[in-house]
């Protein structure tokens, strides 16, 4: 069933600033400081502040976005709005008022009634916040029992009403389902419905779309916009993604190191940010339209609760003056907004200049990697099934034809479950292909990694998504880097250590890191170590699996620059996976779009992003959010995720907005070559180009 939104495109609400909303503040945060007591080894105790002197008024009916890097206190502030402190936390000063009541002074019973009833929270991971052993109907009834005055007999009707409100198809049947039977997007919708059960005044959303696919995210945001319009709910939206915030917020509050450093209307903050941190953050976000790498914001945010004198941002600020090291800036008004910075007003008013870093020139060489009709599947046919002549199950990934040249970057793009990682796993030999050929130069890569010879192993390396997981927590950096050096080159002792230091220098880390453990490094530094480890084998091909998605934006920009620069120096080829299309645009030379393990379209990044012809590419790109208040995503089809690729026909047949008919169900479309791109669709390419212009 296709969900049709009535308000697709841009509507009159939103981004109107504070003027349009009712002026009575619902929630008032007054000079709030939160923290905990730190016990020192010598028995002393001291107070550590996690939130410092935060003041914020949230008006009725507005959506306020809280942004900042991880560890800056966004979630702590959002939870404080519920009167909730994390374990061991305490109020060091200030108040949170809901209407006239001060939340932290309320007795527990009143607070419990208020939570869910007046102020409701929608958590990040809906799949984990729903009870796995209870049917959705029972969970919704529980929420209604707690937070509404309805008689028990009306729970079911109201539950159906709520599920319809969040635009879930066939709500009656859903009541009988368990959470795991729903897709991530549907689970998030149920979580929203549960939060709405008590008809709350204020909805707190803690990264509600993080971890969802681009298209699903766009759909959920559209739903939230619609609900806000219809119900007039006040929302506090926490996200690290400025694109999401831009889409939904009226006002934006920028957090840094537990302080609110800038507060203003959405358009103001995104178009003309005042605080150097906000400027740096906006400049570090890769953008689809730019042909350059984003500029990195140097340094890392301070550790949670780290104490400092003067301005928290002074260590990373491009406009730092000696004064900033000593004087803590106050929250001062600048026009209609609040800024916490020592700089004089004219300097804060200077327009934002997005200066990207030009992509280093890389010479593309002869072909390196080629995939020919590769099919991979996780289920193996047992001997018994073979004997009985059962047909093989549909492969997870099928018909992949790709090639990659030396010094080139090819990005694989698609939603989760599109087979991107599966292709990588088969290239690196963890899950060899069922059919087809993978070749590196003229050497076959079809064998599992254990059966490859040492040189071949060395030539293909992989960088993982999360450096916390990919570095052994019990090894020092020197030991981590020594592993490939020992394995591939037999280096030991002083020679190995010297080489490890050399590798660290290549990723711009000092030698003193060698004796540290991963836990003593920040996220960006850990990823640099992981990159150094992959380069230790002097590889020809590096598989990059979402290498920047676990990092903060400011750090991500620096890592992207590093990768590109290493490529220029070493001439390696990257096979790159990223769900963030702007990152792909910044780093990739060519893009291959995958849906359900099948290729849809492939071409030069610039051409493909400028004119996505395949209906799926079009759907994907139109759903991308940008940190621009005027950008509107377009939603084509519904966001129902599919778990299995169709056995025959075009893989995109079920969600295609331009589906022709039975032809799409039954026949796999042939490749069409046009203007340097190739795509797989039954609609003739020239016609698709025409459709795009409408």
């Amino acid at each position, binding site marked *: 069933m296709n969900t049709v939104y009535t308000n697709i495109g841009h509507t009159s609400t939103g981004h109107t600033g504070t003027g349009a909303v009712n002026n009575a503040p619902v929630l008032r945060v007054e000079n709030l400081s939160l923290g905990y007591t730190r016990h020192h*080894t010598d028995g002393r105790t001291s107070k550590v502040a996690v939130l410092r002197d935060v003041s914020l008024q949230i008006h009725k009916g507005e959506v306020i976005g809280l942004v900042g890097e991880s560890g800056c206190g966004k979630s702590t502030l959002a939870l404080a709005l519920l009167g909730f402190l994390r374990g061991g936390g305490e109020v060091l000063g200030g108040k949170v008022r809901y209407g006239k009541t001060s939340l932290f002074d309320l007795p527990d019973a009143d607070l419990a009634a208020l939570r869910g009833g007046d102020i409701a929270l929608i958590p990040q991971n809906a799949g984990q916040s729903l009870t796995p052993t209870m049917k959705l109907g029972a969970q919704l009834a529980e929420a209604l029992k707690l937070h509404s005055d309805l008689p028990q007999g009306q729970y079911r009707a109201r539950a159906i009403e709520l599920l319809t409100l969040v635009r879930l198809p066939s709500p009656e049947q859903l009541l009988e389902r368990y959470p795991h039977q729903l897709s991530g997007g549907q689970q998030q919708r149920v979580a929203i419905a549960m939060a709405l059960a008590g008809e709350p005044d204020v909805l707190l959303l803690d990264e509600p779309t993080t971890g969802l696919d681009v298209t699903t995210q766009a759909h959920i945001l559209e739903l939230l916009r619609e609900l806000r319009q219809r119900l007039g709910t006040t929302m506090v939206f926490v996200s690290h993604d400025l694109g999401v915030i831009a889409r939904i917020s009226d006002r934006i509050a920028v957090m840094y190191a537990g302080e609110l450093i800038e507060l203003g209307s959405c358009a103001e903050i995104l178009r003309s940010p005042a605080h150097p941190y906000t400027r740096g953050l906006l400049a570090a976000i890769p953008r689809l339209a730019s042909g350059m790498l984003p*500029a*990195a914001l*140097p*340094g*890392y*945010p*301070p*550790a949670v609760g*780290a104490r400092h004198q003067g301005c928290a941002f002074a*260590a*990373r600020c491009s406009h730092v003056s000696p004064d900033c090291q000593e004087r803590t800036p106050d929250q001062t008004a600048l026009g209609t907004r609040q800024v916490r910075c020592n700089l004089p007003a004219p300097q804060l008013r200077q327009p934002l200049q997005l200066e990207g*870093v*030009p992509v*280093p020139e890389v010479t593309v060489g002869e072909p390196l990697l080629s995939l020919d009709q590769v099919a991979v599947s996780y289920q193996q046919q047992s001997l018994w099934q073979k004997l009985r002549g059962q047909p093989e199950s549909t492969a997870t990934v099928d018909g992949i034809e790709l090639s990659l040249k030396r010094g080139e970057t090819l990005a694989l793009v698609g939603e989760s479950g599109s087979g991107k990682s599966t292709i990588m796993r088969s290239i*690196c*030999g*963890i899950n060899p292909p069922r059919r087809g050929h993978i070749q590196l130069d003229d050497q076959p890569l079809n064998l599992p*990694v*254990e059966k*490859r010879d*040492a040189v071949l*192993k*060395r030539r*293909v*390396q*992989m960088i*993982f*998504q*999360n450096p916390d*997981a*990919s*570095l*052994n*927590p*019990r*090894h020092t950096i020197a030991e981590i880097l020594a*592993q*490939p050096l020992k*394995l591939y080159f037999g280096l030991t002792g002083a020679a190995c250590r010297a080489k490890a230091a050399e590798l660290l220098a290549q990723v*711009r*880390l*000092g030698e003193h890191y060698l*004796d*540290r453990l991963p836990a*003593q*490094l*920040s996220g*960006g*530094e850990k990823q*640099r170590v*992981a990159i150094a*480890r992959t380069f230790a*084998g002097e590889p020809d091909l590096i598989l990059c699996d979402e290498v920047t998605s676990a990092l903060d934006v400011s*750090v991500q920009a*620096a890592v992207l*620059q*590093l990768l590109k*620069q290493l490529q*220029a120096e070493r001439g390696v080829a990257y096979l790159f996976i990223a769900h963030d299309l702007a990152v792909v645009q910044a780093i990739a030379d060519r893009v291959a779009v995958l849906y359900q393990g099948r290729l849809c379209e492939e071409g030069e990044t610039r051409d493909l992003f400028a004119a996505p012809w395949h209906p799926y590419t079009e759907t994907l790109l139109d759903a991308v959010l940008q940190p621009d208040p005027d950008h509107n995503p377009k939603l084509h089809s519904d966001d129902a995720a599919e778990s299995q690729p169709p056995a025959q026909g075009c893989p995109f047949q079920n969600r295609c907005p331009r589906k022709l008919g039975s032809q799409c169900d039954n026949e796999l479309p042939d490749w069409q070559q046009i203007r340097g791109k190739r795509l797989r669709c039954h609609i003739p390419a020239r016609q698709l180009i025409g459709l795009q212009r409408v």
Partner: protein
Amino acid sequence: MTDSAAIENTALAASQSQSTQGRTPQKRSVQVWRSMRRSPAAMIALSILALHLIIALLAPWISPWDWTLQNGYNMLQPPSAAHWFGTDNMGRDVFSRTLMGGREALKVTLLGTLLAMLWGSLTGITLGLLGGRIDEWVMRAVDALLAIPWLLFLLLIISTIGQSGLTLVLTLGFFYGIAVIRVARGATLDFVARDFVMAARVRGESNWTIVRQELLPNVLDSLLVEGAMRWAWMLLAFSSLSFLGFGVVPPTPDWGLMIADTRGIMSIAPWATLFPALALSSLIISINLSADAFGKAMGLDRAKAPV
């Protein structure tokens, strides 16, 4: 070329941020020790354990009497200034025998625990890493072995092979290793799915290297605690065997044997049974408490630990 120089500068600045500089945190062993020192129970338990070990080492030199010397004129004497723990039915000094009685038990069980931990943990970690059919089959075999009443099984083996220190070490080590397999495998499964193991596999490291370098350091915490627990259990098992006459050969003093020999005269001379029993239980309790405190200090959640 100026562009790339600019990149380099920003990146270098990035690496020199203040966030991770400053003092290096203490070594983990120091942290664990600090944490243990805060718990009085742990410190008492560790002191008792240390005392037992020192006594076992020095017993031949600190025993006031010859522990095998029989004195027909001095049987079943209650504790006195000359015989602190009294004498037994053969007139032997119970104090000297109690001091000596832990030596054989400690020697055999320490070696046995070492053997059990070595083969059990390596097998367990390897199974956890390999997974699949081998893992399934071996684990079913382990389940089956664990279902056999262990004491009867041990008696059977010892009575067939013969009673010697080496046999005891081997049989106890083998048998207790089976239980260690489960624990090691369970702890490994937490780490096998992590990317650093995947990274090692992609790099082309051998399974043996992955077990030794990637997995072992991570499951070592659980294994150390498990080893201490196994040791306590093995002491109990060894003493039970001695009690039944399958452990230490008389006249070597041993707590289990002493309890067995004197249990008939417990109503006349309770001291002869009481002191070896006290020595044995204080040792086992101190090991258990130390292991618990050790686990807690290392941040292991015993409630979550696999059984």
